[in-house]
């Protein structure tokens, strides 16, 4: 028995030492330039791996990443303010980046080739830089269309037609950036009063408000709803997996997201130079061509970059004149109004 106690205690101690050892070994040496770079990314795992691999081939810098949604990254940056664990924030909608910049969590940095990026997509304050764009669209289940003998909706107004009743899904604007883009786009396009009148009517057709922005596209793919409102790349991804989806864009005009990259303030000092190199690289033609090469459906920002097969470029869609900064500043009040006026008492069941 005695001996057994000793072995158990020994094992415990060994575990502790082992983990403590692991813990201390990865604290980087400050100041000295290193060969590594840590990135928070909103890109899915299988998508980001080819990107960072391409970067490593070009520069020899080893990129390690943590995958977090944009909202999660913001919280993490807030909480880690004293000692951020990463130097670069890569991917995710620019309005979250804007919010982070307002809170002083980002460091201004623009890539060397910033001049190659269209002005309408860049940050006037210079905190973040665009890496991809994507427009809002309708994900329509083809089998459902066939079964009901319908044609796909082509406009915001179409969604109010009786045949789509109880078959429209979007996320809740208070929960998802995608859905907030829908709300803000409609308000900017129609004016506040008309937009809310429209949303009230649409609410009657709504099957469900999901929590996540890409869920409507997935639900449409699984046949849980006829139509889902999401970003085009979130619709084309399940479509490419094999789900029977059709992508259409509203002809009155649609909003869009700008995917961004930015330098995190006070990130690990030894990674600073690598971080800048990385941000330079994201604006380069090589990296902008990667969306087409790896068959993801994001639209490159650079006009001279290759467009992924199957993706629809912005010149073929009617874009609303979407002001992301304005949208960010009116977020609280618009979401609150949505809660009280559109969802009303039935809002939270």
């Amino acid at each position, binding site marked *: 028995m005695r001996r057994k106690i000793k072995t158990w205690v020994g*094992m415990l101690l060994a575990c502790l030492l082992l983990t403590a050892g692991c813990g201390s070994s990865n604290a980087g040496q400050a100041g000295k330039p290193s060969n590594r770079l840590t990135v928070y990314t909103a890109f899915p795992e299988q998508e980001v791996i080819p990107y960072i691999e391409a970067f490593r081939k070009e520069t020899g810098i080893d990129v390690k990443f943590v995958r977090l949604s*944009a909202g999660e990254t913001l919280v993490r940056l807030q909480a880690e303010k004293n000692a951020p664990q990463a130097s670069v924030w890569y991917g995710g909608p620019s309005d979250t980046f804007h919010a982070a910049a307002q809170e002083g969590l980002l460091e201004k940095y623009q890539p060397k080739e910033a001049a190659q990026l269209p002005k309408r997509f860049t940050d006037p304050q210079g905190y973040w830089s665009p890496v991809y764009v994507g427009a809002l669209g309708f994900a329509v289940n083809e089998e459902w269309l066939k079964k009901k003998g319908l044609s796909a909706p082509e406009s915001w107004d179409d969604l109010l037609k009786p045949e789509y009743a109880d078959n429209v899904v979007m996320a809740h604007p208070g929960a998802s950036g995608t859905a907030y883009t829908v709300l803000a786009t409609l308000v900017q396009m129609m004016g506040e009063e008309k937009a809310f009148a429209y949303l009230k009517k649409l609410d009657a057709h709504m099957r469900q408000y999901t929590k996540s922005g890409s869920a409507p596209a997935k639900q449409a793919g*699984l046949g849980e709803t006829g139509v889902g409102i999401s970003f085009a790349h979130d619709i084309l991804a399940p479509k490419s997996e094999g*789900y029977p989806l059709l992508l259409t864009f509203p002809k009155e005009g649609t909003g869009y997201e700008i995917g961004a990259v930015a330098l995190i303030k006070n990130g690990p000092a030894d990674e600073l130079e690598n971080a800048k190199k990385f941000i330079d690289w994201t604006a380069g033609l090589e990296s902008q061509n990667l969306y087409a090469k790896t068959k993801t459906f994001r639209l490159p920002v650079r006009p001279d970059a290759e467009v992924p097969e199957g993706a629809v470029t912005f010149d073929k869609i009617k874009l609303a004149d979407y002001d992301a900064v304005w949208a960010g500043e009116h977020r609280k009040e618009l979401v609150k109004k949505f809660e009280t006026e559109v969802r009303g008492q039935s809002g939270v069941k």
Partner: protein
Amino acid sequence: MASDMTVSTKPKRERGGFIRVKMLAREPFLLGLIVLVFLSLFLFAVLPIYQVIKVTVVGDAGADLSKIGEVLQGHFLHVMWNSIQLGLLSAVLSTVVGFVFAFAIARTDIRGKRLFHLIALLPIISPPFVLALSTILLFGRNGIITHGLLGLEDADVYGLGSLVFIQTMAFFPLAYLNLRGVLESINPSVEDASLNLGASRWQVFRTVTLPLAVPGIFSSLLIVFIKSIEDFGNPMVLAGDYSTLAVQAYLEITGMYDLRSGSFMAVAILLPSITAFLIQKHWLSKKSYVTVTGKPTQSSVRMGEKRMVYPLFAFCALVTSVVLLFYGTVAAGAFIKLWGINFTFTLEHFSYIFTLGFDSILNSTLLAAASTPLTAILGMAIAWLVVRESFIGKKVMELSSILTFAVPGTVVGIGYVLAFNKPPLLLTGTALILIAAFTFRNMSVGIEAGTNSLRQIDASIEEASKNLGASSFVTFWRISLPLMRSALFSGLVYSFVRSMTSISAVIFLVSANWNLLTVSILSQVEASRLGAASAYCVLLIAMILFAIGLLQFLVNQLQPKNRRRA
């Protein structure tokens, strides 16, 4: 006595507090243990939660309660009630199912026990989102069962009903593990005596077994209630328009970028949880449940009558097949091209996870393995201290031990980052912070199980050991711990499995060097790659089942040698 809470909380057989405190001074091990437990609880349970509360009530310009007012004006109370309703329903149903399972396995000669036991452990392994997605694949509008089998056109799978269903399936194993430990440690001779005196099986059950199982029933209700209202993954996918606090808090933080309101909502979940905890403690403290007295016992004749065994068997078989249906769906998903669309057999999902995802598999296993023994030992030690020893601040110890268990994982994660992101406690980015989070978040189940089994063991056994000159440490190690075997096992299993599968707490704690399997699964789910997500899950389940087998073997080693041979 019952009316006075401070008196009634002390176990019956305890001697005067003064003498015990004096004895403490003579027992350096005991004193050291108490100090160590307090210190670690303060650091890893109280401090992080305190940091989160601080964020809520302290604004940029000093103390400021405006956020709380703002939150209270919204739908907060309604959402809170939703959570409580969900918690109560899931707790009652899970405990009923868990009890029937535990009873069938511990007290009868039912066939297929081993299988039932194994299947009942499966749902603890609930990888994030995947089971909820299976629900949609099976029972959704295009679901294999609702649409394919039953031909329903417009099944609606979202809402309270589905949530209660999936949570019952996910959490009944907790009740089962807990209650099985309790039922097994009820000395069978008590029941035999009642039978010999002419009571019917039903009378024995109603007047002896059930009342003695009350501590287990209550703590199962408590654990499932807390777990249910804290649950994030299932409501996120399946709730539809039914809002719960844990999800609402997360969305407030990540969707509205409002850390303060979200934290307040999340910390508010503590209110119903701690209320439930206090009610449970108050009830249990009034009675004695001692049946293991150290006097010789004979093992009883297990129930074998057909009229008892058949319904129990049918019930267990039904639950088992539901569990198998869900996990079968996941397993099938790992080997086919695309659920619902293309059912061709493929191994491509596995080749993907072995080429790209191997690091995270290794990390998850390593960290879970490191935190498991810590969790179990700490849990058993706290249970033992709380039930057997008396010292100042015992209540505080009990309460703080459930803090990180009761708060939604998201907030635990944020609390950990806030608390451990500056020197001298700079732990972010290390493996240590993950191990600590696992340990302190999972230990409650071990504590509950340990407390329950200790309540049934007469303290005189331990006193005998001490009278014979053994120290507290030797007594704990050689007498108490082996008697708490079953509880120890549940603690170990739960801790390991939860460490492997937790997501909401770790999402803020994973780092580039320490990325975890569940984060990879989440990424796959987000990208609609259900096949790869399922493949990860299958691998996860296989590894966990292997680990459970190993733990069972190790725990059996604790059994005294002579009895093991017998």
